[in-house]
């Protein structure tokens, strides 16, 4: 019986040539040193992609890529379709993990010098795969057809619209028309489901093919620089002398890490569920405070913190330079040492990139530059700032509340963070400076001169003059103290 099964297996293998392909791919030899825990991120990214394909196909069974029905179909997936919430959750968390692990993979490849000769194209295809993955993240955010998706597109349009000469045509191409609408969603659906995944599959094959062709990077060692003339020979000698089969000897760590990743994705999906959909995608409901998903938060933050004159250049030229440098990397740093311990510049690059992207993302999440649109009506004035105040000052407290000052300025830390906290404003500004700031604005504050009556300004400033920290003197003029009628008396 056994031999009969064997015969059948051999018959199939003779036709399908499975064992030949398997031995040439999974069974290929790699340097023993590469069977390392540092080398598991690539396969884990691919596993995430497989999760995405699988759950994506399932979601497409229900999802309606129509502007009218997408939102309802998302709610149906969340609440009515059995396990729909879980699949949406896995798809969402799978995308988060895919982006995160892909970045780790990229960092590792960069730090280990794996992009150097002869693996230039492996790196270049990886850079394009990175861009395609980010493209999936952005188009996926649009699939969640809610307020954030709608206004997120608006942000995309505003950036595209800055392109000189062909700006309008580009926005039309992006949206499928002059305004965000049904065609926009269909367009992004096509990109998200057909075009970009197709590109990822094609480039992934190339990426893997290159790993087989040129061998996985050996674990770098100090004193073994890449020399074009001898590298391939040395690598092959190393594999011959000290090689091991990828399957079954080296794949174990990949499997363990991949399994953990899948487990984490499912666990996050169960614990935190899918994201959204949040507000109804009705453009006339404008109580929206759009925020992009975290992979794009740093761009959102950058847009807030840049001086306006730099914006268009940075938003349009920045990506070209950034991507260009990434693609060019293996060509201007082609040979030499690989070990990160003696490549301080690359370590610095990674630290700088991580710090700046991390900081910008953190600022994007907290976004202290965004006014809190409801603070003026939802947050009461702290009562200890009102006790013992004169009627005029109390009137000023009302002006401060009623004129939306709290949307940008907090009292006791509650309210917008766009402008400075006003709880101790009188420690910093004198009476005259307060008047000037209110009337003329400045910094990021609009001028209120036309929007407040003189009486309102007088009351507001009177109230703000009472706002100073206990035990601290109010702000005072640095010049002409003796002539001023506002010299604070130190004896009191």
């Amino acid at each position, binding site marked *: 019986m056994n031999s009969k099964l064997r015969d059948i297996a051999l018959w199939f293998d003779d036709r399908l040539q499975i064992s030949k392909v398997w031995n040439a791919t999974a069974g290929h030899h790699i340097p023993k040193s590469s069977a390392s825990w540092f080398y598991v991120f690539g396969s884990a990214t691919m596993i995430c992609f497989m999760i995405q394909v699988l759950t994506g196909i399932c979601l497409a069974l229900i999802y309606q890529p*129509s*502007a*009218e*029905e997408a*939102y309802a179909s998302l709610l149906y997936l969340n609440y009515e379709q059995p396990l729909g919430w879980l699949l949406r959750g896995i798809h969402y968390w799978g995308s988060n993990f895919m982006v995160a692990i892909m970045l780790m993979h990229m960092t590792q490849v960069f730090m280990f010098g794996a992009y150097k000769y002869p693996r230039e194209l492996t790196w270049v295809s990886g850079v394009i795969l990175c861009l395609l993955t980010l493209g999936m993240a952005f188009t996926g955010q649009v699939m969640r057809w809610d307020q954030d998706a*709608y*206004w997120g597109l*608006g*942000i995309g*349009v*505003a950036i*595209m*619209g*800055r392109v000189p000469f062909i*700006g*309008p*045509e580009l*926005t*039309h*191409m992006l*949206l*499928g*028309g*002059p*305004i*965000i*609408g*049904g*065609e*926009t969603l269909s367009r992004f659906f096509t990109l998200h489901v057909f075009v970009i995944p197709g590109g990822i599959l094609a480039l992934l094959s190339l990426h893997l093919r290159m790993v087989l062709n040129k061998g996985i990077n050996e674990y770098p060692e100090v004193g073994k620089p890449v020399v074009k003339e001898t590298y391939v020979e040395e690598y092959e000698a190393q594999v011959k002398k000290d090689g091991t089969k990828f399957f079954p000897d080296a794949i174990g760590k990949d499997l363990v890490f991949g399994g953990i990743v899948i487990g984490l994705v499912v666990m996050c999906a169960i614990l935190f569920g899918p994201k959204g959909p949040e507000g*109804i*995608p*009705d*453009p*006339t409901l*404008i109580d*929206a*405070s*759009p925020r992009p998903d975290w992979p794009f938060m740093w761009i959102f933050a950058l*847009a*807030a913190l840049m001086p*306006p004159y730099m*914006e*268009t250049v940075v938003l349009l030229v920045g990506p070209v330079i950034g991507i260009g440098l990434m693609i060019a990397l293996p060509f201007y740093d082609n040979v030499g040492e690989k070990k990160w311990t003696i490549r301080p510049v690359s370590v610095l690059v990674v630290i700088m990139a991580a710090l700046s992207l991390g900081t910008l993302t953190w600022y994007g999440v907290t976004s202290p*530059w*965004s*006014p809190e*649109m409801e603070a003026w009506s939802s947050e009461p004035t702290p009562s200890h700032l009102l006790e013992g105040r004169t009627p005029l000052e109390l009137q000023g407290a009302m002006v401060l509340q*009623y*004129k*939306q000052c709290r*949307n*940008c300025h907090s009292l006791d830390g509650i309210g917008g963070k*766009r402008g400075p906290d006003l709880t101790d404003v009188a420690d910093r500004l004198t009476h005259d400076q307060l008047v000037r700031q209110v009337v003329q*604005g400045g*910094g990021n504050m*609009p001028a*209120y001169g*036309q*929007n407040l009556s003189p009486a309102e300004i007088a009351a507001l400033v009177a109230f703000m003059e009472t706002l100073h920290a206990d035990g601290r003197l109010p702000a005072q003029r640095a010049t002409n103290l003796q002539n001023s009628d506002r010299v604070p008396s130190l004896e009191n």
Partner: protein
Amino acid sequence: MSDECPHKPSEEKTPSADNGAPPGSHPCCCGGGGGAKKKPMSPERRNFMLKFGMGLNVAAGAMIGIPIIGYLFSAFKKESPQVWISLGAVDQFEVGKIKMATYVNPGAKPWDGKSSDIPCWVRRKSKTEFQIFAINCTHLGCPVRWFEESKLFLCPCHGGAYYENGDHAAGPPPRGLYEYENRIVKNELQVKGGQIPTLSQPV
């Protein structure tokens, strides 16, 4: 399989026989396709078929490719899609006040749902003068909100602020609010809309 075997030797022989002689001089070639059935194809003829086949496929590719490109780039047109759209009776807007109004995207598709409703801010300056602002902040397109009490438009994204007349007041926006054209026809306010405003095409 078995009936091909006899011809193999002749196939192998032909190229070697052709090698020496200049093309065309070989007696077999003069006959062209009309020759004997089993006669091997000459190199030029094979070449001709290759070229002809490639040409045919380029033509066929263009027949499919040109319509596809035309289809895809149909959104890429230059002329402005803006038309006059009614916002309703003039009287619903109070003099000196700012109010949100909605128009239906003139290019709307039947499956657009709510996304075809486009909001805008209408300011009635006087009995006959109106200003209609796009909802989109000029910085990054987020929806600006009007605050009647402080007479300001505020943007929830990066804190851009605009005055009542649309002028830039504070924050990162590079210019004032985008303003649509408007006109009054028979006591009805009309807006010229149909295009999302951007810095390179500010309505």
